[in-house]
C-alpha cells in the first residue's frame, strides 16, 4: 500500500491530521477544531505505526452517523494512501522495491527522488494525479449531498430523497399535531397544582397536604387528511409525495390519505404498512393503474359525500397535493371546497408548480380554489416542504 506524499511544507502529525479533518469536512462531515483535538488526543493512546489502529481511532472520533460511518474507510484510504491503490506496475521489480523502502518518508518531495527511481516514479506521479482526481470525486459527493435538498423532484428520485421526504413529513406532522387544549385535567405530572383536590385529600392526614394533585392541559391532537393528485401531470412527483404521505401517516391511527385521479381511492391502510419500500411500490402501482385525466372537483365532491363525515372535523387539517390542472368546470372545485370548509377544518394546498419562477395560479381550478385555502404553498423541493413548518404550526 502506498502512502500519500505530502509536500515538504507540511510537517508534523498535527498539520496532516488537520488536513485530514478538512478533507472529511469537504465530504459532508460535521468535523471541526474539536474533532482535530480529539483525534490528536486519541492518537496518543494508540500505536501510530499501525495504520489500522489509526483508522479505527479516527473513525470513532469523526463518524457521527451510519452514513459517515460507512463512508469513512474510503475517505481514509483516499487521503492517506493515494486511494489505496497498489502499484500494478509494469516497471521492473528493482525500482518498485526501492519504492517500498521509501514509503515512510512522506516529507520528501517528488522532484528530489525523481531521478533515482526512473520509470517507477512516472507511475508514481500518475498515482498522485489519480489521487487529486479522486479527491475531486469526493467533493462531488459532498456537493451532491448538499444539493439534493434543492433539486426539483422531477429531476431526481433516490431512495435517500424518499427517506428524507418521509422524515420531513414526520416532522411537519408533529408540528401540526402538537396542540394543547385550553382546559385542565388531572394528571400525575401536571404543570400546576389542583388545590381543591389537594386540600380535600389533606383531610385524611389531619390537614397536611401529603399528596399533591396536579393538573395538565391535555393534548388535542390534530387529524391530518391528505388528498394526493396522481394524474398524468403529477406522476413525476408521485413517488416523493407518496413517501411524504407515508411520513405524515407514520403509525398514527388518526390520519388518513386518499389518492385521486379520475377516481378517488382510500390508501390510509396501505400506507400503514411498516415496510416503506413495499408500501411505496404497492402505492406506485395503484397510482399508475388509473387513466390520464384529472377530475379534482368531482373527487372532492365524492370525498365530501363519502368520507368527510367520518374523518373531517374542526380539528382536522386537510392537505391537498395537486397542481390544480382540472378537466372539469372550476366552479365545482370552489363549491366543494366551500362545503368542506363548512366542517370547520383547515385546508392546505401544496402545489409543486408554485415553486417555479414566475408562477401564477392561472390554472382555472387553482384560481377558483384560492379563496377557500388557509395556506397555499410550493411543494416541488424538500426545502420548500421544510419551509412549511412555521406556517403549519400557526394553523
Amino acid at each position: 500500500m502506498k502512502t500519500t506524499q505530502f509536500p515538504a511544507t507540511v510537517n508534523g502529525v498535527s498539520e496532516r491530521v488537520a488536513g485530514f479533518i478538512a478533507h472529511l469536512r469537504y465530504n459532508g462531515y460535521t468535523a471541526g477544531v474539536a474533532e482535530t483535538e480529539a483525534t490528536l488526543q486519541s492518537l496518543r493512546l494508540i500505536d501510530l505505526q499501525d495504520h489500522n489502529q489509526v483508522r479505527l481511532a479516527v473513525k470513532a472520533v469523526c463518524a457521527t452517523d451510519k452514513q459517515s460511518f460507512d463512508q469513512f474507510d474510503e475517505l481514509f484510504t483516499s487521503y492517506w494512501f493515494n486511494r489505496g491503490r497498489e502499484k500494478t506496475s509494469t516497471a521492473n521489480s528493482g525500482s518498485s522495491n526501492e519504492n517500498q523502502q521509501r514509503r515512510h518518508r512522506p516529507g520528501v518531495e517528488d522532484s528530489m527522488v525523481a531521478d533515482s527511481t526512473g520509470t517507477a516514479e512516472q507511475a508514481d506521479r500518475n498515482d498522485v494525479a489519480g489521487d487529486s482526481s479522486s479527491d475531486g470525486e469526493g467533493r462531488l459527493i459532498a456537493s451532491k449531498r448538499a444539493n439534493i435538498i434543492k433539486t426539483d423532484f422531477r429531476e431526481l428520485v433516490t431512495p435517500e430523497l424518499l427517506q428524507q421526504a418521509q422524515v420531513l413529513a414526520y416532522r411537519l406532522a408533529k408540528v401540526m399535531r402538537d396542540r394543547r387544549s385550553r382546559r385542565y385535567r388531572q394528571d400525575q405530572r401536571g404543570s400546576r397544582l389542583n388545590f381543591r383536590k389537594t386540600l380535600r385529600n389533606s383531610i385524611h392526614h389531619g390537614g397536611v397536604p401529603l399528596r399533591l394533585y396536579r393538573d395538565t392541559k391535555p393534548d388535542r391532537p390534530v387529524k391530518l387528511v391528505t388528498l394526493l393528485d396522481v394524474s398524468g401531470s403529477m406522476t413525476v412527483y408521485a413517488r416523493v409525495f407518496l413517501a411524504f404521505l407515508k411520513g405524515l401517516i407514520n403509525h398514527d391511527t388518526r390520519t388518513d390519505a386518499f389518492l385521486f385521479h379520475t377516481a378517488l381511492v382510500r390508501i390510509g391502510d396501505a400506507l400503514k404498512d411498516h415496510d416503506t419500500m413495499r408500501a411505496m411500490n404497492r402505492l406506485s402501482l395503484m397510482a399508475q393503474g388509473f387513466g390520464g385525466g384529472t377530475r379534482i372537483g368531482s373527487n372532492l365532491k365524492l370525498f365530501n359525500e363519502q368520507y368527510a363525515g367520518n374523518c373531517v372535523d374542526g380539528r382536522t387539517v386537510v392537505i391537498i397535493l395537486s397542481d390544480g390542472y382540472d378537466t372539469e368546470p372550476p366552479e365545482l372545485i370552489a363549491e366543494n371546497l366551500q362545503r368542506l370548509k363548512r366542517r370547520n377544518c383547515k385546508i392546505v394546498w401544496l402545489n409543486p408548480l408554485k415553486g417555479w419562477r414566475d408562477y401564477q395560479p392561472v390554472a382555472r381550478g387553482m384560481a377558483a380554489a384560492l379563496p377557500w385555502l388557509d395556506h397555499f404553498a410550493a411543494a416541488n423541493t424538500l426545502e420548500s416542504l421544510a419551509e412549511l413548518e412555521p406556517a403549519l404550526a400557526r394553523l
Partner: protein
Amino acid sequence: MSWKDLQQQLADGNYIASDELAMAVYLATRQQRPLLLEGAAGVGKTEIAKQLAAINQTQLIRLQCYEGLDASTSIYEWNYQKQLLHVQASRTETAEKIESQIFSEEYLLKRPLLEAITEENTTVLLIDEIDRADEEFEAYLLEVLSDYQVSIPELGTIKARSKPIVVLTSNGSRDLSDALRRRCFYTFVEYPDFKTELAILHARIPHIDAELAGQIVGFVQALRKEELEKKPGVAEMLDWAAALAGLGISKLSDDPVELQATMVCLLKTQIDQYAVTREVTERLAGKVVA
C-alpha cells in the same frame, strides 16, 4: 492497557467485540467521553455496558429512556413528603433553619444521572434508547454530559465526584442532534459476520455441538437476508440455539416440524411468522446442512 487488551478482556467476559467497537470503547473510557452506539435491535449494544461494568468491577446505572422522560425522573426530585413531615415535626424552629434543613441532600431523591456522577467510584452509566426521549431531554443531557455537573436551584451546583463511563444507545427511531453526536465517540454496530457470530455462540453456550453451532449461525445469517420486518438479532440467535440444544436436536434437517416450531425464537412478528413458511425454513436449513 491497549485496545487489544480491552478487546481480550471483553472476550474473556464472553463479549466478542468488532475492532471498531473495541477501539471506540477504548477511546471513550480513556478520554472520558460518552460513547454513542447505534445499530439494529439485538446486536449487543446494551450488553457492552454490562460488560464494561463487569470489567471495571463497578456498578452499572441504567436509565431507560421513553417519551416524556423528564428531569424529575432522570436527574433528581425533592422528597416532598419527607420535607413536609420534617416541617411538621419542628414547628418551634425558625423558618430559615427549617428551610436550610429540608433543602439538603438528605431530602434529595437521586435519579440515575445524578446518582452516576455523585458515586465515589467511577460507574458505568447506560442511557438506553436515547432516541425515544424527547428533544428537550436530549438538550438537558448535553449539559450533564459535557460538564459532568448538575445544578439544583435550592442547593447549588453538584459537581461530579467521578466521571462515569457513559454509554448511549439508539435504535434510530428519531434523528439525534448533531451536538450530541459530536460530543460522543460513535460506532455503528452491525450484525456480526459468520465467524464472529460463531465465536459469540461458543462463548455464550460453551457446551453446544460444534457442527450444530455452525448450522445455527449459518441459518440465522441466511434468515437475515430474507425480507423480514424484524430481523433476528444475536440475542434471538442465542435463544434459538439454547432452545435447539435443550430439545436435543443435533442437526437442523432432522425434524422439520420441530424446527418450524422453534422458529418462534427468531421471528417476532405475525407477518414474519407468516412469511417464513416451512418450505422457507427447510430451504435455508438444507443450505446450511449441506
